[in-house]
C-alpha cells in the first residue's frame, strides 16, 4: 500500500490526422489507504490516466510516484499493483482457484501455499464454494467477486479498477458496491477507481477527481465536489437530476434573472464570512457582468401560482419512487424540480416555482468557473441531499 502521486501527467496519441490529447497535465495525490475515483463522461481521459498509472500506457510527459519511488518508466510488471478490468478478464481455461492464485504463481509461490491463500481470499469475498468451477459457469456477480479476489490475493501497492461494474445489472451493482467498500476497508488498500457513474463515485470514494476533456476539473471529497463545484461542468455533471442553468446579469451584489416578463433578483453571498467559499474565486474576478446561475432540482419547489418566485407551466411529472421529478415549461427553457409530494399537481396547469435562495451557484458565463453562491450562508448543511462517503 502506497501513496500515489501523479505530476503534470500528459498523454498524447498519434492519430492519422495529427495528435490527440487524451490527458492534459493532470496532477493529483492519493493518500495511502484512500479511495480515489476518477469520474467523468466517456472519452474524458480517465481510463487513460489509470492505464498510465498502471504502466499499460506510456505517458508522453509527467511523472508518476508510488510513495517516493518514481515509477514513470517502469513496466506494468514491475509496478507491483493489481487491476480489475471492465471485461473482468478471468482466464476461461483456468478454474477459479487458479485464477485467484495466478498472481502468486507468477511470483513463484509454491502450490500449497498459494491455494491456501486463494481460499482465504475467496472466503473474504464469500465465494469459497465456487473455486473449483470455471469462469464460464459463474454469473456476472460471481465473476466480479473472483476478479476482486484475484486482485487482492497478493498485497499490491495499489488496487486499480477500470469501470468494473459496467456489465452488472442495477441491483447487483448496489450490492457489489457495498461489498467492494467492505473489502477495501478491511484490506486498507489504496484504490483508484474509474467510473462514469456519479452514484458509484459518491458512495465509494474518499476523493473524487472530476475529469473532462483530459483535464481534472475538480479534485476533492465527494461532499466538496457536490456542494462546492469548481465550475459549470462539475456542477452539471455531478448531481441527479442535472442542475438548472439560467443566464443572468450581476452588478457584484445582486443577480437578475429574466424569465420572460418576470424577473427574479438574487443576492450574492458575502464570501468573507462563508468558510466553504473562502479559498475559491470571487465575484470580483468575473470577466463580465454576464453570469450563469445554477440551481439543483432539489433546491426548487413547485407551489401554487403566484406564491413562488416566478410562474410557469407544469409540463410533466415523472415519478422517481419516493419523490417526483417535475418538468416545468418556461420562457428560458425546461426547468427541473424535485418534489416530495405531487398531490394537487396536475400537468398542464400554471404553477409557481420557489427557489431555495441560499442554494444557488453563480458561474462566470465566459470561463465557466464558480464565482459566487447566492443568499445567506445556511446555518448548517441542511438542504443538501447528496451524501458523502467520508461521513459514514
Amino acid at each position, binding site marked *: 500500500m502506497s501513496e500515489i502521486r501523479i505530476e503534470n501527467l500528459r498523454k498524447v496519441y498519434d492519430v492519422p490526422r495529427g495528435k490527440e490529447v487524451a490527458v492534459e497535465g493532470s496532477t493529483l495525490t492519493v493518500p495511502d489507504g484512500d479511495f480515489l475515483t476518477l469520474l467523468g463522461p466517456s472519452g474524458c481521459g480517465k481510463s487513460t490516466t489509470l492505464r498510465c498509472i498502471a504502466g499499460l500506457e506510456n505517458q508522453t510527459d509527467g511523472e508518476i510516484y508510488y510513495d517516493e519511488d518514481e515509477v514513470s518508466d517502469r513496466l506494468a510488471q514491475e509496478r507491483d499493483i493489481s487491476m480489475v478490468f471492465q471485461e473482468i478478464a478471468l*482466464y476461461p481455461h483456468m478454474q477459479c482457484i487458479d485464477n485467484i492464485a495466478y498472481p502468486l504463481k507468477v511470483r513463484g509461490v509454491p502450490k500449497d501455499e498459494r491455494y491456501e491463500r486463494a481460499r482465504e481470499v475467496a472466503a473474504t469475498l464469500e465465494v469459497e464454494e465456487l473455486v473449483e468451477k470455471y469462469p464460464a459457469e459463474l454469473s456476472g456477480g460471481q*465473476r466480479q467477486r473472483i476478479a476482486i479476489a484475484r486482485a487482492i490475493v497478493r498485497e499490491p501497492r495499489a488496487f486499480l479498477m477500470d469501470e468494473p461494474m459496467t456489465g452488472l445489472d442495477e441491483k447487483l451493482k448496489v450490492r457489489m458496491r457495498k461489498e467492494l467498500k467492505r473489502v477495501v476497508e478491511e484490506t486498507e488498500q489504496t484504490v483508484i477507481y474509474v467510473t462514469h457513474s456519479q452514484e458509484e463515485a459518491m458512495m465509494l470514494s474518499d476523493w473524487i477527481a472530476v475529469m473532462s476533456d483530459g483535464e481534472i476539473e475538480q479534485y476533492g471529497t465527494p461532499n466538496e465536489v457536490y456542494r462546492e463545484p469548481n465550475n459549470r461542468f462539475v456542477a452539471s455533471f455531478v448531481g441527479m437530476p442535472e442542475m438548472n442553468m439560467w443566464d443572468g446579469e450581476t452588478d457584484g451584489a445582486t443577480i437578475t434573472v429574466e424569465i420572460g416578463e418576470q424577473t427574479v433578483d438574487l443576492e450574492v453571498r458575502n464570501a468573507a464570512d462563508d468558510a466553504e467559499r473562502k479559498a475559491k474565486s470571487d465575484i470580483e474576478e468575473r470577466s463580465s457582468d454576464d453570469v450563469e446561475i445554477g440551481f439543483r432540482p432539489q433546491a426548487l419547489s413547485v407551489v401554487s401560482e403566484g406564491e413562488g418566485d416566478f410562474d410557469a407551466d407544469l409540463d410533466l411529472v415523472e415519478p422517481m419512487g419516493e419523490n417526483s421529478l417535475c418538468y416545468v415549461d418556461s420562457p428560458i427553457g425546461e426547468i427541473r424540480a424535485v418534489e416530495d409530494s405531487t398531490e394537487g399537481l396536475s400537468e398542464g396547469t400554471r404553477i409557481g416555482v420557489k427557489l431555495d435562495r441560499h442554494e444557488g451557484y453563480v458561474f462566470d458565463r465566459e470561463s465557466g468557473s464558480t464565482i459566487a453562491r447566492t443568499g445567506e450562508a445556511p446555518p448548517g448543511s441542511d438542504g443538501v441531499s447528496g451524501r458523502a462517503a467520508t461521513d459514514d
Partner: protein
Amino acid sequence: MSYTTSKSPIERIIDYYVRNVPHATQRRLSTWVFRFLVGATVIVVGFPTYVMLKASIQPELELFSNTFLFVPRNPTLGNFAGLFTETSFARFYLNSIVAALGTMVISVVSATLAGYSLTRFSFPGKKRLAQSVLFSYMFPPLLLALPMFMIWRDLQLLNSYPGIILAHSAHALPFDIWLMWKFFQTVPISYEESAWIYGASRLRAMRDVAIPMALPGIIAVSIFSFAISWSDFTFANLLLTQESMKTLPIGMLGFIEQQAVNWGFIMSASVMMALPAFLLVYFLQSYLLRGFSVGGLG
C-alpha cells in the same frame, strides 16, 4: 378460391398437402424423408470407403473375378504383408509422417507467433501485409513448386526432409497465419494486460493466457497443416525424385506405373494412408469443439 390464380402448380400442391394431409402423416413422412436423405449420404460417402476396406483384405484372385463380393470369401492380410515385404511402402510411410509432423510443428509455431504479432503490435503496413499473406494462398501449388525446384536444387534441398517440410509449410502457412490472426483477434488484450499487471512477462502472459485461449485455433492450424502435407502431390513429385525419399502419394503412384496395376496394394496402402488422418481428426475434434467461449465472458 379465386386468389389462387397467382400460385404456381407446385405451390398449389404444397398448399393442398399442408391443409389436407393429417398432421401425424405429415410428421411421419418428414421423418422418413430425413432418414432417406441421411441414408443416401451414407451410401455415397461410405460405399467407396467400404470397397476400399473390403478390397484391402481380398486376395488378388478374388479382386479380379467377375463377381462382385460384398463380403470377402477368403479374407487375408496378405496385401498388407506384401506392402511391407515387396515394396518400399514402409519407407514412404516414414517419409510422409516426418514431412507431415515437421510441417505441422513449423506451421503451428510460426502461425501462432505471426498471428500474435499481427494482433498485438502495430507497425506500418500491417494490414496490407496480413491481407497479402492470404492472397499468396491463392497461387496454384505448381506455380510455387517450379521455382522452388530451381531454388531447392541450388540450395541442395532436393530429396531432403528439410526441403519438403519447408515447401509444405510455405504452402500451408498463408492460411494458417490468417486463421491465427483471426483467432487472436477474439482474445481481448485485457486478459494479457491483467497477467502483466500481476507480474507475468510478455512471453509468460502469451504462454499462460493468450495461447490457451487461442487453442482451438492452434488445433485447427495443426490439422490443416498436417492435411496439406499428407495429401500433397505436386511439391513432393517435383522435389522428391529419389525413390527412398518419396512420400506416400507419389510412392503409391509406383504401384500403378510398374508392370501391372496392383489393386490389392493400392487398396491396402490407401487404408494405411487414411489411418493417421482419421486418428488425428478423431482425437482432436473434441478440442476443436470444446468451446472456450471467449465471447461469453465478461
